[in-house]
């Protein structure tokens, strides 16, 4: 059997190379996020946001932008026979789950690298909360990647893929979004960041990541069966 580390690196490198070459997911995700910020800026008629409103605008935008990437995560595998190629190889199939989830974390991190500074320029008077926000972004990305990879792999063989992913993923991501917005709210409050219940929300995010990471590890092999 091929070592899992080798197979993981091969699949992840293949996905990132394909994305860099074709730019099928990231530009769409970033454009969606920036457009949504513009709509919020003019729709709310506010030049600055803070607390729960800022947190809500940020996470609603990032969640829906993430859906665009999640929808396309397994498209090359389905349309180009990659599922068969990977199923024929002497590898632990959960490596595919880990590699796809990692690719999604990279996409989300790249998305946030571009859009969070734009969010700060559009809406924040004080950028001091952005430092600790990195931990929230990272933990939320891990949770979104675990659930997104799981749901995307289930939906990819369905003709209603574009409908199925949000239909299943959005309800599943509610606990994640509650914790993410809860952790973000005090960081973006007026007068600078506070850390009220910040640690508790981070633990909730970590627990969500752990649960869905383990669920993905446990069921992914069965999802690949024809």
């Amino acid at each position: 059997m091929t070592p899992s580390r080798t197979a993981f690196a091969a699949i992840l490198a293949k996905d990132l190379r394909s994305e860099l070459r074709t730019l099928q997911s990231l530009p769409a995700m970033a454009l969606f996020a920036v457009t949504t910020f513009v709509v919020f800026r003019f729709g709310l008629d506010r030049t600055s946001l803070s607390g729960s409103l800022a947190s809500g605008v940020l996470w609603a935008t990032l969640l829906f932008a993430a859906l665009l990437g999640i929808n396309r995560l397994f498209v090359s595998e389905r349309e180009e026979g990659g599922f068969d190629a990977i199923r024929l190889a002497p590898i632990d199939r959960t490596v595919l789950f880990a590699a796809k989830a990692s690719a999604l974390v990279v996409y989300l991190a790249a998305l946030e690298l571009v859009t969070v500074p734009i969010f700060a320029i559009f809406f924040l008077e004080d950028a001091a909360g952005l430092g600790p926000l990195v931990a929230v972004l990272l933990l939320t990305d891990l949770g979104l990647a675990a659930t997104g990879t799981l749901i995307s792999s289930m939906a990819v063989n369905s003709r209603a893929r574009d409908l199925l992913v949000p239909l299943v993923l959005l309800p599943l991501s509610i606990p994640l979004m509650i914790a993410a917005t809860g952790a973000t709210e005090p960081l973006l409050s007026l007068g600078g960041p506070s850390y009220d219940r910040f640690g508790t929300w981070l633990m909730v995010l970590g627990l969500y990541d752990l649960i869905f990471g383990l669920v993905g590890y446990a069921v992914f092999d069965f999802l690949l069966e024809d």
Partner: protein
Amino acid sequence: MPPAQEKAGPAISVAGLRRDYGDRPALDGVDLELAPGNSLVVLGPNGAGKTTLLRILATLLRPSGGDVSVLGCSLPDEAWKLRGRIGYLGHEPLLYRDLSGRENLRFGARLYGIERGAAEARIEELLRAVGMERRADERVAELSAGMRQRISIARCVLHEPELLLLDEPDSNLDAEGRELARALIGPAAGRTRVVVTHDPERHEAEADQVLRLGIGERAVVS
């Protein structure tokens, strides 16, 4: 039968194989046995279950009933032991369109755990063998169907499989491509082969056994 061969057993042994898609049986009661190093040609009209049989042998589909053993591994329970010992050439080339032919082969080599130096040498050798060394760095999306098939044949034998499962291996190939492919996946390559084809004249002559599948009829081995 010589004792060594008897000990090795058949490369493929199938008894009462059934596969249903919902209520519709795609395969019903297939029996066959193929000795190591032999070639089996599978014939039949569209919808007779030829591709289904090949995908079951490749561990890509679970049988609905019957006993299947490939290279001494019972399917589906021991499928994990079998992967890596099979070369599968399906209807789809199993190549990523946004990668070049060479990148696709490198990806395959890494999945099969071939060490980097050995993989590069093997990839060069195979690209020459299928006549694709000059176009190997072009994206697969830019290649013709015949060129994709050549790269796909190289992918199929990259890891030196013991058993070749070939679904219409000549499709999209020109005369030169067919000759080049023959050296890699033909009977002279010395591997056990199962070939699904609509071109019996070409392949039947090379076959040790022929399996005829019919729609709603019992499979016949000759």
